Structures are given as structure tokens and as C-alpha cells.
């Protein structure tokens, strides 16, 4: 034996050395080692410091249940992963791992002073101690707690890795590739259906990897599975959660087991698997025992010691004592003995031991202490002995050893079963909850089903001890530093439900999800409360089963692919002409087109002046469009919109106001009747999908008798608004087949014809108050037609303008933007749009609500204009308005500013606001308190420019 490496055995490749570092020091192991086994082989017992008390901690388990040995693995800039479990980290050349939560070093942790003061850190400590003063929380307590407590540090640089993601479908998904899982997969595969077998470990085999007698079978079964076309075997893949109807999300680690320079392609892949049947074969996790000193490095699970010896060829100590409550501890001790590990003694609280086990131990010359319990562990950073006592209370007897193995029985791994809302049943034999019923097509096999014959044991988490509970330092939850006495304290303070005890003590929380602590916590609470375990309840297991990188969850959805960015067909032109953009829903829209050194204000002022004095061109393609077709089209629109539609002549347009059934404005837009049975609707950019869905709802579920159909045509058309006194002159040379004269083509009319040789639906509409046209052409021609209009426009001094200018121009005219000047509580009357409500119509969506008492009550907020006393002061949108600026705080707020701009046309600022009883306040001065000053403004009608509408005619 070199160091702690056994002379032979294990699945490691002793011809292939792997060099790595731990806390900066050079170490080595073999191919096939885990980080934990390689370090143990070199005698490393101390792996980390505990979460709260900074107590020295070693290895507890050999798999994902490990709560203590959390390490950070650094694979270069942006590739630092904290909180990895050392037993689950595959060793490779160049692996750089560091321990966590210690300052400055693992051996000398100054913060371990916490440990000495631990009497002051009981359960509920955070809740009790840091209640007040409130200000101290942010400045004093939180920074200190963050320093003291915690896991590894988050990476601070961008993750350069790529992550893959996919959906997958199969008839059978088997989670866990131990003997039971492999058998289930083989059986399912024989029927020919698609089978997925996934397992979190480096290779499939599960418990069989720690049992050389099964290796031949394992090799054969693996080969058989690999040869089947309908079977997909995914090792290094963790099922992180089970969701409705057998939707299992699993993360496959693709490159972390490889040296950095050999890692190519995505780092992880997220599998979103829909399975006909899910078979859970997740095994069971051995339970630790709760006794004084059970967290000293060197105290670990018996099954872990067996795995280290038989799978990795590593002895976890030179002289081991086994503390067993269960036959499996004896079996493991004997297996370890056979593998060449020196077992000094087996201590078992049970007085009666199965004769064949006792005999085998005697043959192996292992000292046996039936009826005894470990009552103390000596050693600080490593075990150097234990005290055992008859029934835990007799005279103590010291046994020399350098490792202690705990065999407290087994807990079936029911996490995914619980995610699936499967119920659990208490099993006395196991001393654990086992799966019971589920409404999913889901079943458990093997140990996680409670179906595993490994002998019998005593169900008891807390060992009897000479000290009273409140003085003991026996740990239940190693990761969260919860002691048995904390649970006692929680009960003493009145907590009865395990859900409350969990939150008060933090038992079973965080990344660990109670893998080793849950059942012991229940047993202790049960003991203190003198009530059976089943009366205390069980906490809920939540996904993820083990911590999961955000990268895999994002998959391809990062950076440029984070979400779609919709661009119009004219966007490239805007880009080439220096547009500054803003995002509207998923679209990006040109906001303004700065020239030279112009800022936004200067550019917008120029664009506004150009539209009012000459002509401006605007990309309105993002407007929602719906084609409404069918004999009942007019009847349908009449029912949907507030205003009458049946009388609208083909070729004419109408402003439509759409309410919800609650009577509030939810959308608006100008729509055209192209033919008796065909309308071209427009909606707001952001409302397109919502409006279509709402209309479909009424059509399908309320008025299914109407013969009318809706088709989204938003993306069919590019829309170019040409606005300004010279608009007609700009488009005239390009249009064919449409008489543009004011007589033949009045305001609010639509014509079909050609522009630049392309089919167009030409609207004469205006959102600026100027003579205006909106040119609709099939989307692929948008850019070409835009450029042609632009070329004509340039002859007339045209400017391209963006959404900001559009906003200013419409505000000058008092036109609302739904969602800006309305907020879901604004009725047509509130918005000053009472004229758009058909008084004679018997019904339309929202009509009945307009007669509700609150809607007709006086004093509602109404849309008004505001002119600041200082014409250069531009109010902030969203600013609150008060009537009396001198009233004490909190002031009575009577409204807020909805739209506010500097208007180049008016040479001053303008604003719109929703103000209580606003229309009765015309001429009043109101006040807008802002930091350091109060701005006063006069209430006016929300119409600042050309109230007669004379400019519409150019």
C-alpha cells in the first residue's frame, strides 16, 4: 500500500497517471479516479469547512449525496464552477480544484472561531439576532454573514462555453443505471420501443461499480445496450427534475471530465425528455448516524468506504471502526476486510447480531461490540479514536482508529418520485419513506422502490449518549450545519410541522435537498415531540436533484439568440442611415435619425419641423394588421369596436377603438373597408397578437354563427408613412392607377393600385395632423419602394423620421398611444374619445361596463393637456400631479403625466396627463413636485396644434 492506495483492485487504470492540483499543490491519481478518491489515496482527510461554523470537514459519501467536500474547479477565465462534490468530480490531467469557505487556508481557518462561539449560533440565529436595527442589516450584518457563511464564490466573468439543448421522446425512460435500471432498460428495449437510460455517474453500473463480482455482468449488459439501435445510453447525465406527464429534464455533462485543451463543443446538453413510461432506478442513500463528533474528518458512510476501496482501490484509513445499526454495515466491513482494509472493530447498538455476520467478523478477527454505541470522536482535523459505551450510556471505552464508518440504514432516493407528486408510504423495515401511489405512468424499481434485500437494521438516527441533547454536538445536516439539538430547540420553541422545523433550522435545505439529513431530522423531531414520524409530515423535495448550471438551462438562448429581435424590411436602410433604435415589443424600431453631431432633441426637432413644413417618411411596418373577410365581416367589427362599422363604405377608413368587456381601452387603430366583405384592420405594434387572440375568442366562442375569418397580415405588408404638406407630391410620380386628387381620394380613404409597379393598398391617413399617406406593399418590396419614395422625397426636402418624432407629432395633435396615455383603467370618455363610441349601437364589447356606477361617477381621471408655466421645462412622464404644492407629505396625488415632449413646432414643452376631474379644471394651475423643485403647469385641452384640422388637406 502506497499512501492509502490499496495494492490492487478497483476500476482505476494504474498505468495511467493523472496530475492535478488541490489548493494549488501538485497531486496525482489514476485514470478512473474521482477527485475524492485521488485525494483520499494521498491521505487527504480535510476537504472543506462547514457552512456556518467553519468546522473542518472530510468526505461523507462517495456520490452526489456528499454534503461536505464541496470544491471549486477552475477551468480558466469564466469557467470556474463552485460547489462541486469532490466524489462526483472525474479526475483528469490539469484539474485545478480548490477548497471553499475557509480563510485564509483550509488548515488554518481563522473564521473557525465561529465554531468556538457556536453556542451563540443556535437554530433561528439569523432570524433572531439580526432583526434590528433595520439599517444595520444592509451595511453590517449582511456583508459579515456573507463573508462567514456560504458556499463557493460565483464566477465573475462571462461564461465562454456553449450549451446544447434538445427535446427528445421515448417510450421508456430509465433514470439510474444500476443493476435495477439496466435490467429495466433491457426489458423495455426488447419490446422495440425507444429507450433512454441515463445516469449521473461517469459510467453506468451504479452500485455494481463497487462490487467486482458484478463487473462481468455489467460489461456484458453495457455491450448489449450499446448494440441496440433503439436504446440511448447517457452517462454523466443527471435527471434534475420530473415535470407533468413524464416530462423529465436532464443535463448531460459533455466536457468537464476532459482536460481543458481537449474539451471541444458544447459543455453541457439539456435534454427535455417526454417519455411514455418513466422507470426510476435511483437507488438508495445510506444514512449517517447522529452522535457526538460525527462530523470530524474521517467519519463517513460505510458504503462510501466500500466504494472507495472496491471501485477506486483506496483505503479511507489504516484502522477503521464501524458504527452500525444495520446489517449492511457488517457486509461492507467484511467486504472492506476482504479488500485488504483493516477493520479494527464493529460497534452495533443492537445486542443481537445475525449469527452468520458475527461469525464472519470473528473469522476476520474483527472486534465486535454488540449493544454499544459511539459516544465521542477524538481528533480535530482527523479522527484519532472513538469512545464507545454500552447502550451509549455505560462507561466509555476508547478505541484507536483513523476513520469511523457509519451504517445507519438506507433511504430510498425518492426525489424525482416526489417531483412527480407521487405519494410516499412509511416503511418500518426501512425506517424510511418509500414510493406509494402516482397518477403518472411512473414506477420505481430496485432500492428506490424499497425493493432491495440487504438485511435488517435498527431504525434510529440519534444514538443514545451520556450528554443531554442540548449539550451535544451531533450533526444532522452537515451541509447546513444543523445539529440534533437545533431540532430540539426548534420543537422547544413551538415548531411542530417538519416544514416549519426545516425552515427554522435549515435542515434539508439548499443544494443538498436533505439527501443524508432528511430522515434523521424526522426521527429526532419525532423523538422530541413523542409522536410517530408519520405524524410529523415530510418536507417536499424540489428540483433540481443536484445543482445545475444556468448555462444548460439557457441552452442556445444566450447572447444573440437570447430572444428573437424582429426587424422590418426597411431596417437595413435605417441602419445605413444612422438610425438610433428603440425596442417596441420584440421589434426594433428606428427612434430618430441623427445627422452630424445632433443629439436626440436636435434630431427630433429637425424631423418634426421637416414633417410640418415639407414631408417626412416613416417606417410603420410593425403596426399589427388583420384581414377580416367574410359576409359577416362588418357585423363582426360592429360588435367588437365601439363605433359603427356597417355604414362604412368600401374604400373608406375608420378609427376603431377596442375595449375589453370591462369597458377600458385596450387597443386602437385605423382600419379600412376594401370590399363589402373584406376589411384591413390595423392594431398597435405591441397589441397585434393580443387583439387577434381576443377577436378569435369572440368569434369562436360567442358568435360562432358569424361567417367571418381573421388572418394576421402584419408581416405581409411593409408600411411606409409619408406625412407632410408635400406628401402627395412625393408619391404622385410613383403611383399608378389611383387618382390622388383630394376630391377623388379624401382623408380616411383607401385605394388599391400600384406603386413602383408593385401592388399597393394606399391609405390616406394621418397620425401627425398633416396631409398623409400610408403605403402598404408586400413585405419583400418594402425596401425598394422606400428607396423610391426617399429619392422623390429628397427632391422636396424630406426627412426620414423615427418613433420619437412620431410621438411628438401625435402628441401635438392630442392623439393617444394606447399603453402610454392609457393604463388599462381608462374608458373612452376618460381619454376624451367619447365621440368614437356609437351611442345608437345596442351592444359592443365593453358597452355594458360603460354604464357601471364607477365608470359614470364624477371625478374620474381624464386626459388633459398641460402647459408648464416655464415653457422650456419638460415634465417627466410618470410624474405625479398635486393640486396644492404646500400640503404636508404624503400629498394627495390627483393624477400623473402620461406624455411629455419638447415641441419644436410650438417652441415650448407640451404634455398630456390623466387628472382627476381634469376636464373641469381647464385653466387651473396644477403642480408637479420633483426632487428639489416643484413645476407648475396649466390645464388645457389636449390639442396643441391646428385644432381645426386644416392641415390634413395639405
Amino acid at each position, binding site marked *: 500500500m502506497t499512501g492509502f492506495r490499496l495494492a490492487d483492485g478497483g476500476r482505476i487504470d494504474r498505468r495511467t497517471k493523472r496530475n492535478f492540483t488541490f489548493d494549488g499543490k501538485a497531486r496525482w491519481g489514476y485514470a478512473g479516479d474521482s477527485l475524492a478518491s485521488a485525494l483520499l489515496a494521498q491521505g487527504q482527510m480535510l476537504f472543506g469547512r462547514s457552512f456556518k461554523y467553519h468546522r473542518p470537514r472530510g468526505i461523507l459519501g462517495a456520490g452526489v449525496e456528499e454534503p461536505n467536500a464541496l470544491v471549486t474547479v477552475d477551468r480558466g477565465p469564466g469557467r470556474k464552477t463552485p460547489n462541486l462534490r469532490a466524489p462526483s468530480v472525474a479526475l483528469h490531467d490539469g484539474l485545478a480544484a480548490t477548497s471553499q469557505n475557509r480563510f485564509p487556508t483550509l488548515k488554518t481557518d481563522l473564521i473557525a472561531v465561529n465554531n468556538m462561539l457556536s453556542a451563540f449560533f443556535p437554530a433561528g440565529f439569523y432570524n433572531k439576532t439580526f432583526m434590528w436595527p433595520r439599517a444595520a442589516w444592509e451595511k453590517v450584518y449582511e456583508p459579515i454573514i456573507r463573508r462567514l457563511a456560504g458556499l463557493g464564490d460565483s464566477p465573475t466573468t462571462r461564461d465562454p462555453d456553449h450549451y446544447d439543448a434538445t427535446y427528445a421522446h421515448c417510450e421508456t425512460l430509465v433514470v439510474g443505471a444500476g443493476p435495477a435500471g439496466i435490467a429495466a432498460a433491457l426489458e423495455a428495449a426488447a419490446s422495440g420501443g425507444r429507450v433512454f437510460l441515463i445516469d449521473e455517474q461517469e459510467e453506468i453500473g451504479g452500485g455494481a461499480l463497487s462490487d467486482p463480482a458484478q463487473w462481468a455482468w455489467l460489461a456484458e449488459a453495457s455491450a448489449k445496450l450499446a448494440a441496440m439501435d433503439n436504446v440511448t445510453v447517457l452517462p454523466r447525465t443527471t435527471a434534475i427534475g420530473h415535470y407533468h406527464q413524464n416530462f423529465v429534464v436532464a443535463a448531460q455533462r459533455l466536457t468537464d471530465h476532459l482536460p481543458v485543451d481537449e474539451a471541444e463543443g458544447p459543455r453541457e446538453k439539456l435534454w427535455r425528455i417526454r417519455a411514455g413510461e418513466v422507470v426510476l432506478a435511483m437507488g438508495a442513500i445510506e444514512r449517517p448516524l447522529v452522535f457526538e463528533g460525527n462530523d470530524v474528518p474521517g467519519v463517513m458512510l460505510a458504503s462510501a468506504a466500500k466504494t472507495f476501496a472496491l471501485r477506486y482501490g483506496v483505503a479511507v484509513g489504516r484502522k477503521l471502526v464501524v458504527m452500525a445499526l444495520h446489517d449492511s454495515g457488517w457486509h461492507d466491513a467484511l467486504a472492506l476486510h476482504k479488500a485488504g482494509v483493516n477493520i479494527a472493530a464493529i460497534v452495533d447498538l443492537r445486542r443481537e447480531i445475525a449469527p452468520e455476520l458475527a461469525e464472519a467478523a470473528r473469522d476476520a478477527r474483527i472486534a465486535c461490540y454488540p449493544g454499544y454505541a459511539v459516544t465521542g470522536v477524538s481528533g480535530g482535523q482527523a479522527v484519532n479514536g472513538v469512545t464507545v459505551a454500552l447502550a451509549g450510556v455505560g462507561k466509555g471505552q476508547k478505541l484507536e482508529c483513523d476513520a469511523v464508518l457509519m451504517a445507519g440504514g438506507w433511504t430510498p432516493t425518492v426525489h424525482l418520485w416526489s417531483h412527480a407528486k407521487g405519494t410516499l408510504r412509511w416503511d418500518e423495515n426501512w425506517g424510511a419513506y418509500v414510493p406509494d401511489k402516482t397518477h403518472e405512468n411512473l414506477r420505481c424499481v430496485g432500492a428506490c422502490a424499497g425493493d432491495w434485500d440487504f438485511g435488517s437494521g435498527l431504525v434510529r438516527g440519534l444514538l443514545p449518549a451520556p450528554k443531554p441533547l442540548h449539550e451535544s454536538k451531533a450533526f444532522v445536516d452537515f451541509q447546513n450545519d444543523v445539529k440534533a439539538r437545533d431540532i430540539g430547540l426548534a420543537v422547544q420553541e413551538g415548531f411542530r410541522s417538519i416544514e416549519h422545523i426545516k425552515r427554522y433550522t435549515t435542515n434539508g435545505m439548499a443544494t443538498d435537498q436533505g439527501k443524508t439529513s432528511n430522515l434523521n431530522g424526522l426521527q429526532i423531531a419525532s423523538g422530541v415531540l413523542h409522536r410517530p414520524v408519520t405524524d410529523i409530515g415530510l418536507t417536499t423535495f424540489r428540483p433540481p436533484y443536484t445543482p445545475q448550471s444556468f448555462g444548460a438551462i439557457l441552452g442556445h438562448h444566450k447572447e444573440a439568440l437570447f430572444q428573437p429581435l424582429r426587424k422590418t424590411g426597411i431596417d437595413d436602410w435605417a441602419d445605413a442611415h444612422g438610425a438610433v433604435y428603440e425596442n417596441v415589443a420584440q421589434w426594433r424600431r428606428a427612434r430618430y435619425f441623427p445627422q452630424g453631431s445632433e443629439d436626440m432633441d436636435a434630431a427630433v426637432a429637425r424631423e418634426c419641423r421637416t414633417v410640418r413644413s415639407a414631408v417626412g417618411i416613416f417606417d410603420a411596418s410593425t403596426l399589427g394588421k388583420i384581414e377580416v373577410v367574410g359576409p359577416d365581416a362588418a357585423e363582426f367589427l360592429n360588435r367588437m369596436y365601439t363605433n359603427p362599422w356597417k355604414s362604412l363604405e368600401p374604400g373608406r377608413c375608420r378609427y376603431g377603438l377596442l375595449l375589453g368587456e370591462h369597458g377600458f381601452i385596450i387597443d386602437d387603430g385605423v382600419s379600412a373597408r376594401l370590399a363589402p366583405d373584406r376589411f384591413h384592420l390595423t392594431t398597435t405594434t405591441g397589441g397585434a397578437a393580443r387583439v387577434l387572440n381576443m377577436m378569435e375568442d369572440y368569434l369562436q*366562442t360567442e358568435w360562432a354563427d358569424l361567417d367571418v375569418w381573421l388572418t394576421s397580415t402584419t408581416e405581409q405588408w411593409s408600411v411606409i408613412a409619408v406625412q407632410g404638406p408635400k406628401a402627395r407630391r412625393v408619391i404622385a410620380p410613383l403611383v399608378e392607377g389611383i387618382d390622388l386628387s383630394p376630391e377623388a381620394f379624401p382623408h380616411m380613404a383607401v385605394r388599391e393600385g400600384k406603386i413602383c409597379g408593385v401592388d399597393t393598398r394606399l391609405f390616406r391617413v394621418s397620425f401627425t395632423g398633416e396631409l398623409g399617406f400610408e403605403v402598404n406593399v408586400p413585405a419583400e418590396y418594402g425596401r425598394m419602394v422606400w428607396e423610391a419614395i426617399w429619392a422623390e422625397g429628397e427632391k422636396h426636402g424630406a426627412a426620414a423620421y423615427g418613433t420619437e418624432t412620431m410621438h411628438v407629432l401625435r402628441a401635438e395633435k392630442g392623439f393617444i398611444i394606447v399603453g402610454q396615455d392609457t393604463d388599462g383603467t381608462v374608458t373612452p370618455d376618460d381619454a376624451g374619445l367619447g365621440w368614437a363610441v356609437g351611442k345608437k349601437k345596442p351592444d359592443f364589447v365593453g358597452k355594458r361596463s360603460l354604464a357601471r356606477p364607477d365608470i359614470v361617477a364624477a371625478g374620474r381621471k381624464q386626459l388633459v393637456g398641460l402647459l408648464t408655466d416655464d415653457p422650456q421645462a419638460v415634465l417627466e412622464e410618470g410624474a405625479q400631479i398635486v393640486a396644492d404644492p404646500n400640503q404636508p407629505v404624503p400629498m394627495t396625488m390627483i393624477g400623473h403625466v402620461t406624455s411629455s415632449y419638447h415641441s419644436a413646432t410650438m417652441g415650448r414643452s407640451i404634455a398630456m396627463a390623466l387628472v382627476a376631474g381634469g376636464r373641469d379644471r381647464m385653466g387651473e394651475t396644477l403642480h408637479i413636485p420633483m426632487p428639489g423643485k416643484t413645476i407648475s403647469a396649466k390645464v388645457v385641452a389636449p390639442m396643441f396644434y391646428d385644432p381645426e384640422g386644416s392641415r390634413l388637406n395639405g
Partner: protein
Amino acid sequence: MLLIHCPYCEEARPEVEFAYGGEAHIARPVDPSTYSDEQWEEFLYIRSNPRGRHHERWRHAHGCGRFFNAVRDTVTDVFETTYKAGEARK
């Protein structure tokens, strides 16, 4: 992610293709003007919110586009049945 059986497509499809549509069988009155304020409030805002069997509307928005009704258990999320709009309450 739920699998929802669309009664029009006659197959179970992934939840992401669907949009939830609130409680089912709340018909808009033929003539809302005949409703009292209390009746109208009931129609607009009052919902049953049961624990257990819930009649609700879904739309196969990214599939066939149809609204339909479903009975879902609000505790287990299990769909008992789905049926076409206009069919009697199940």
C-alpha cells in the same frame, strides 16, 4: 410541461402550443343591457376557483388555433377530459 389533448387535432400536444383562457362556460349574455350591475359584475369578475375539478378554456394557439374546454384537477393538474367549444359542460 403538460400534454394537452386537443379535441380538434385529436392528439396530445405540448403545453407550449396552448394558451390558457380562464374559466369555461361563462357565456356572454345575448343582451348585456338587461343585466343589473350585480349580474354584470358576476359575469365580469366572479370565478369559481375550485380545488379539484375545474372547467376551463384553452386555445391551441400555435396549433389548430381553436378554443376548447377542459376539465382539469387543480390539485394534481391532471386533465380529466377536453371537449370542443359549444359542447355541453362535462
